């Protein structure tokens, strides 16, 4: 029976029976897509399973990759306005060679309790790490900053398009050494803000949650739509 189960799991695209220690939280968008498809199937509505209409992209496999990076703590006195530094790392090995990446979206949730009422405005910077991080090194060697965004108030989950970056990582796995995230507090030094800074940063460390949503298209399972067009 186990032998047959293994064969069947391979048909499902799994190398072995997964045995997760605990279930990860499922983002709302994935739940919505799942429930919409389930509802359509129940009432017998035909669906294009190779197009994710909720995201507006072609694809038939959606993956939410958890961040496997870590916080960086500098022994030196950090820049006064720097609140948090983190290496973000996403393992793309689950994406099979034959799959085509059609979407890669970084989700950064700063948490609902990050801000005080009328608290300090945050700014976040994202850059690609150029070399693997060496243990004991304070900060990895970051490349050019490709995202610099002001976050003046709680905005829920922030999304960033990483499709080109993820494609590059997928084609050259050795290049995937992570992203460097740094969050600053704007207006640091103003009267009344200093005492909030430490609390804000501590809360931010506790509540920060990063994930990468990846949509891929398996050409073996999604070949009929191009035929239809012809």
């Amino acid at each position: 029976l186990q032998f047959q189960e293994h064969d069947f799991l391979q048909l499902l695209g799994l190398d072995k029976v997964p045995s997760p220690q605990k279930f990860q939280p499922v983002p709302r968008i994935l739940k919505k897509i799942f429930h919409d498809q389930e509802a359509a199937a129940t009432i017998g509505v035909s669906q294009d399973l190779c197009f994710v209409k909720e995201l507006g992209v072609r694809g038939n496999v959606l993956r939410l990759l958890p961040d496997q990076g870590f916080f960086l703590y500098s022994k030196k006195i950090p820049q006064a306005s720097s609140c948090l530094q983190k290496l973000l790392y996403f393992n793309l090995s689950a994406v099979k060679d034959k799959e085509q990446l059609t979407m890669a979206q970084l989700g950064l949730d700063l948490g609902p309790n990050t801000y005080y009422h009328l608290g300090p405005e945050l700014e976040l910077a994202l850059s690609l790490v150029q070399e693997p991080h060496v243990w004991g090194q304070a900060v990895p060697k970051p490349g050019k900053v490709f995202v610099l965004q002001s976050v003046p108030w709680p905005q829920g989950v922030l999304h960033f398009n990483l499709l080109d970056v993820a494609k590059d990582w997928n084609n050259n796995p050795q290049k995937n050494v992570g992203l460097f995230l740094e969050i600053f507090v704007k207006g640091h030094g103003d009267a009344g803000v200093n005492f909030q800074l430490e609390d804000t940063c501590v809360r931010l460390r506790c509540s920060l949650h990063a994930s990468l949503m990846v949509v891929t298209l398996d050409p073996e399972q999604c070949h009929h739509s191009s035929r239809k067009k012809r």
Partner: protein
Amino acid sequence: AALPAPNVSCKNLCHRHQLFINFRDLGWHKWIIAPKGFMANYCHGDCPFSLTTSLNSSNYAFMQALMHAIDPAIPQAVCIPTKLSPISMLYQDNDDNVILRHYDDMVVDECGCG
């Protein structure tokens, strides 16, 4: 020569039967987040020659049934799924990735002789 009429009651004829697959029974509830199970159904029943054409059969099934009547060593047409539909599954793999994927041919919608 006329072929003998089979002695088959209607309830034994090929048709779709309900089958709910509960992932807990397979131990798959440990990695499948949703659904908890699904109505997969299955096909079962006889495919007598006289009713082959009315049982959603393929032309091939008709020919096979005809040949079976002539030579019993050739097996009779069997009751099989003729229309299947996909389901979506939300699960977690060993790398803690949450995956939403569609799987074709998981639910039996219609049965026939083939």
